């Protein structure tokens, strides 16, 4: 059998001689670990929230782990991304330090934004090229297009990935940004996690087409619709999208169909959706499905349990770190509020 390497940044998937993509065991184990990291981080955060240790609201990515793990595996270290109010999963999938992320949720000095951003504003330009989670629905769309324009001008070879949910596709900025990116052929990939609910509104009450990705057709932008509970499928689509954008052919849009296990925010009873939604979601649980697939290719149950235990220990440690960290000094409240210089800013 001849193996041809896919052009992904992390070389983990192969094409065999019949053209089918083969995902290595190592890759799937990575997905499995990332997915557990996201779930465990969120479960720990939810636990702290219900105990009253966190102020403010948190929006959980539980149920969307497979899509996030798959998508971020296809994103290279030089690439940029924007996130949403439901952004913990993106940061974790990108390789965020759980301790710093948890400390940020706690509003502690050691957090990613020195405790001044909180759950919805985690950003990190040093290691993650994370242009920021955002409390404004759809706000990442023009930001990601702007970042892609910088890359095009600077020719730095980076692609910007804009992540957002189904509700954000009805923001006018979706169309404005995508049109510009298409007209200027910017290296932009949009990753829509369609969990079927914009807060409490079922997406088809506010959208006329079965798939959201078809919106790209209005601007001549190629798109793909994938099962967001299968990290391998998401990864393959994202590799294709990233290659397309990186080669100068303009933007690409990927829509992953996912489930949001919790309500809109932690503690939302989600009375607005039918019981069948959660039943269907649990029957399609990404972590469970991937675990079964791994066992079918020879990974033992103990190995999987070991991964989970390691992750849980890491998150326990993150909570302990966050709890023990100090609150920021009130005197620093205006620090880092205004940018005097920014290497992503080309207008100066």
């Amino acid at each position, binding site marked *: 059998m001849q193996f041809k390497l896919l052009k992904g940044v992390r070389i983990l998937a192969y094409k065999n001689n019949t053209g089918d993509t083969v995902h290595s065991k190592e890759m799937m184990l990575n997905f499995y670990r990332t997915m557990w990291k996201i779930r465990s981080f969120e479960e720990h955060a939810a636990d702290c929230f219900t105990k009253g240790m966190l102020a403010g609201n948190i929006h959980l990515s539980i149920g969307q782990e497979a899509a996030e793990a798959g998508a971020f595996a296809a994103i290279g270290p030089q690439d940029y991304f924007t996130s949403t109010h439901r952004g913990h999963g993106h940061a974790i999938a990108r390789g965020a330090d759980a301790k710093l992320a948890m400390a940020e949720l706690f509003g502690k000095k050691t957090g990613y934004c020195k405790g001044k951003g909180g759950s919805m504003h985690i950003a990190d330009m040093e290691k993650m090229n994370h242009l920021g989670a955002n409390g404004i629905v759809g706000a990442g769309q023009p930001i990601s297009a702007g970042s892609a324009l910088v890359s095009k001008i600077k020719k730095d070879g980076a692609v910007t990935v804009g992540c957002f949910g189904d509700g954000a596709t*009805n*923001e*006018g*900025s*979706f*169309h*404005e940004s995508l*049109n*510009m990116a*298409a*007209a200027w052929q910017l290296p932009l990939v949009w990753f829509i996690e369609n969990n079927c609910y914009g807060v409490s509104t079922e997406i088809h*009450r*506010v*959208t*006329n*087409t079965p798939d959201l990705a*078809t*919106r790209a*057709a*209005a*601007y*001549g*932008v190629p798109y793909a619709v994938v099962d967001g509970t299968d990290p391998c499928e998401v990864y393959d689509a994202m590799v294709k999208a990233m290659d397309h954008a990186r080669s100068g052919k*303009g933007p690409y849009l990927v829509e992953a169909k996912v489930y949001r296990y919790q309500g809109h925010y932690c503690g939302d009873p989600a009375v607005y959706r039918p019981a069948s939604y959660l039943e269907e979601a649990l029957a399609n649980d990404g972590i469970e499905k991937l675990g079964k697939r791994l066992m079918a290719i020879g990974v033992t149950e103990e190995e999987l349990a070991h991964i989970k235990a390691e992750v849980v220990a890491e998150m326990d440690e993150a909570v302990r770190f966050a709890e023990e960290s100090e609150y920021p000094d009130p005197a620093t409240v205006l620090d880092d509020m205004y940018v005097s210089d920014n290497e992503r800013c080309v207008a100066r």
Partner: protein
Amino acid sequence: MLLSKEQLLGMYRKMLLIRGFESTAAQLSYNQEIKGNVHLYINEEAIAVGVCEAIGKSGKLTSTHRGHGHQIAKGSDIKYMMAELFGKKTGNCMGKGGSMHIVDASVGTLGANGIVGGGVVHAVGAAYASKLDGNAYAVACFLGDGATNQGAFQESMNLAAIYKLPVLYVIENNEYAVTTRTAEYINAPLAFRGIPFGIPTYTVDGMDVLEVYAAAQKAVERALAGDGPSLIVAKTYRIEGHNTTYTMLEKRLNWYYRDEEEIVRGSLRCPIHFFKEYLTQTGVPAEELKAVEDSVSAEVAASVDFAKASPDPEPEVALMHVYAD
């Protein structure tokens, strides 16, 4: 649906009236008799006339900064609009709106708008009112190619599609957004803009009033049946500058964003000329056409006299009608 000879002649008259009104307004603007800018609808007459014929008297429309043609096509009396351009008390808005803010509720026009894409949201509101009345009338929402890139357009289309509102989105693609060529800022045909919302789309020759009418007629049928909005993309060409100042600038700067030859080519695709040919070939006698032309000239001249003879508004009324009671 067949059009009677009276309807055809009525459409011809309106097209001529738009051309006559706009040419006169342009001259008055160059002479500084009309203050401020005037955005001319010259060479685009077939679109407004075709669509307004289809939506009928009961229909409503939202307009643009280039809105005189829409008002005339909907049947508004031009003397009040001319007075408005002059800023006179007898104008549609008591002389306080000017060229870009003409409203004539008596014929169902919901307002020209200086904000690009401003009317697209009003159209949804008006169509929602129509729906609550059992789809009593269709709403024509005119917008230019430049306005298609305002997010409000997509938000408006999405709502209209979801609520199955009786709207006709009419994109008047005149190839330029101010001085930017349309092709420079879009990546796919404007007709694709309906795809995300599942809205049926017609691409028509905006220089052929009957083709515009035929598409609009189908769209109106769909709208009144409660099946939702349609999109009409009408291709046309703006032979004038973006507005009268730009026209002067273009000539002075030697056609800085397009060449003169292109404008000449555009003016050869004259919708009035085409329609006159058609009417002649279908057997309308030349005298009848001449009679229409004469009556239009007289009406335009009378409107200027009316406007000039009208008084200015009193300064005290400046804040009147600014806020709704």
